[in-house]
């Protein structure tokens, strides 16, 4: 037989799933024309949060590294983007005129710090939204994974990083805008004219598809197999010749880069960034999206972020105690659906299942 091992095609994308993905994408393309302004901006935000969840799924769901620092990577990208938008305010719309952002004037700075000034230029800012969180994650990951810190200790380190950076950003008011963060930024422009909300939505939708596709492509390859093996028993795989630390540093850094990109897109939408997104509370939210959606499912965290965001939106309207509603929902999922919402769907609908082999029990087909 031409296909020596029947039915074992590593990266086949079943037609059924292709159809469902196509329909889902079509819905997301049509939705903005049905939505009002509020829903349009909410859905844009939830797509970014979902992308952030997917990035965490790569390190937690697949590789088994529970991180509360993904909010930090997101926010570092966000600040890079916020400096760009702030520095590109026209002199007229800047509170004090001139080039210097308002919060720097309040805090007595007279010139733009050298490390912030280059962010005025779009290509530099674009690279920074990815490179700053990625470099930060790489250095952090290098020390964590090369020193063989593992399990819960990594999680504790990520919590500490999140708290430390929150405090640091609040304390450096002259450079970061302190607790308020960076507000009153300019709109993101394309060819001299500001991008309308619907344009931003499609930009974010394209980014989400990119994150999902990239993550799927990576996890259906042998890399996905190796990451899952690290998750199940990282000691064993070293004796097969794999440098476990190298793989962890890679996926950790890549994941931070994706989180940073999401943060970079978040600021043009949200029009501000602040240390709130550095804090543990936001990092925990990312963990919750992955837990509720289903670890190692990729689509799950995206679905959970959208679903929880919408529930919160409606709960807020009905009751002041909307956090209680979210809390109860979380309890129900953790207690009764430990593998997340995706485990309720037929297996074929999960992107992650594609990276698992088709379990054939037909040796005849195999022997040919």
């Amino acid at each position, binding site marked *: 037989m031409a296909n*020596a*091992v029947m039915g*074992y095609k*590593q990266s086949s994308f079943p037609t059924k799933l292709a159809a469902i993905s196509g329909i889902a994408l079509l819905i997301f393309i049509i939705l903005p024309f049905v939505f009002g302004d509020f829903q349009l901006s909410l859905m844009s935000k939830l797509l970014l949060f979902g992308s952030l969840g997917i990035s965490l799924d790569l390190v937690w769901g697949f590789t088994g590294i529970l991180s509360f620092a993904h909010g930090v990577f997101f926010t570092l990208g966000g600040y890079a983007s916020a400096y760009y938008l702030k520095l590109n305010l026209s002199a007229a719309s800047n509170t004090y005129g001139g080039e210097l952002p308002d919060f720097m004037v309040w805090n007595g700075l007279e010139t733009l710090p050298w490390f912030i000034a280059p962010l005025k230029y779009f290509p530099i800012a674009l690279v920074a939204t990815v490179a700053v969180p990625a470099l930060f994650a790489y250095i952090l990951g290098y020390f964590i994974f090369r020193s063989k810190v593992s399990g819960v200790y990594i999680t504790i380190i990520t919590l500490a990083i999140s708290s430390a950076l929150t405090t640091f950003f609040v304390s450096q008011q002259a450079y970061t805008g302190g607790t308020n963060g960076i507000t009153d930024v300019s709109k993101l422009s394309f060819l001299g004219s500001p991008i309308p909300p619907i344009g931003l939505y499609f930009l974010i939708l394209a980014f989400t598809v990119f994150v999902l596709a990239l993550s799927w492509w*990576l996890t259906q*390859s*042998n*890399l996905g*197999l*190796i990451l*899952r*093996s690290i998750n*199940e*028993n990282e*000691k*064993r*795989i*070293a*004796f*097969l*010749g*794999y*440098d*476990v630390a*190298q*793989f962890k540093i*890679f996926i950790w850094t890549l994941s931070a880069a994706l989180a940073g990109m999401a943060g970079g897109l978040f600021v043009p939408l949200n029009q501000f960034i602040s240390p709130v997104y550095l804090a543990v509370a936001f990092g925990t939210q990312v963990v919750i999206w992955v837990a509720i959606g289903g670890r190692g499912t990729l689509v799950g965290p995206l679905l959970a972020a959208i679903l929880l965001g919408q529930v919160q939106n409606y709960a807020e309207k009905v009751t002041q105690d909307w956090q209680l509603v979210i809390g109860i929902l979380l309890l129900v999922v953790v207690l009764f659906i430990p593998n997340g919402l995706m485990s309720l769907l037929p297996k074929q609908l999960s992107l992650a299942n594609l990276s698992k*082999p*088709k*379990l*054939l*029990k037909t*040796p005849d087909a*195999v*022997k040919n």
Partner: protein
Amino acid sequence: MEAVLSVRDTKMDGKMESVLSIKDLNVVFSGFKALSGVSLDVYDGEIVTIIGPNGAGKSTLLDAIVSKSPVFSGHIYYQGKDITNNSPHDIARMGIGRKFQNPNVYNELSVFDNILLALKGTHGIWASITAKLTKEKKGKIFDVLSRTGLVDQAFELVSSLSHGQKQWVEIAMVLAQDPSIVLLDEPTAGMTADETYMTGEIIKSISKSHSVVVIEHDMEFVKQIAERIVVLHQGQVLAEGSVEEVQSNPKVIEVYLGHETIKATA
């Protein structure tokens, strides 16, 4: 048996290079000497069986070779190169494969994927992303699966297999690594008599193209496969030789073969 001994004698004369050479090895766990002054040579294509009472340091010796346990002093040479305390993945890539005492396999993956992971080749990140499942790879995987009798289970999850089959999956993984030296830690633990016998035959066939070091308790099994036996006791080499030599060694009889289980088989 004489033929085996004469082969061994030529090896001892130094006419053959040893593949693995352990010199005066000491491994210490917080003050406790797990291995003290162990020296051992493994030659091309031979089966070395290590026996010894519990706590004799058998697994520790294999751990030290693959750098799972740090070496305190002494040296391990592989093909003439000092590999003492190198990183586990480097040692694995050089050509030393290890099977652990309890089957150390990936339960949530299929048998096929377990072997795919172990397959000899590049272990880099980019290589793993772009790797294609070529015909050669499939062929190689099914080759080791047929050698270990697992072809029919190829696409089943390892978690659904019996204990004995899991042991074979791990042996198959070691084979897929295509190492020059295969280190097997109690490969027949938890196996039925039939499975044990089959494992013995698998090991014999492996030794045609690889050097094999086996840790074993079951004396029947040792007799089936053994060429040269090394007896470890309290972290030291107590005796070395053929099954008969070891069984008639007074020191061995005193500390190890004196046990009733061994008497029965002696």
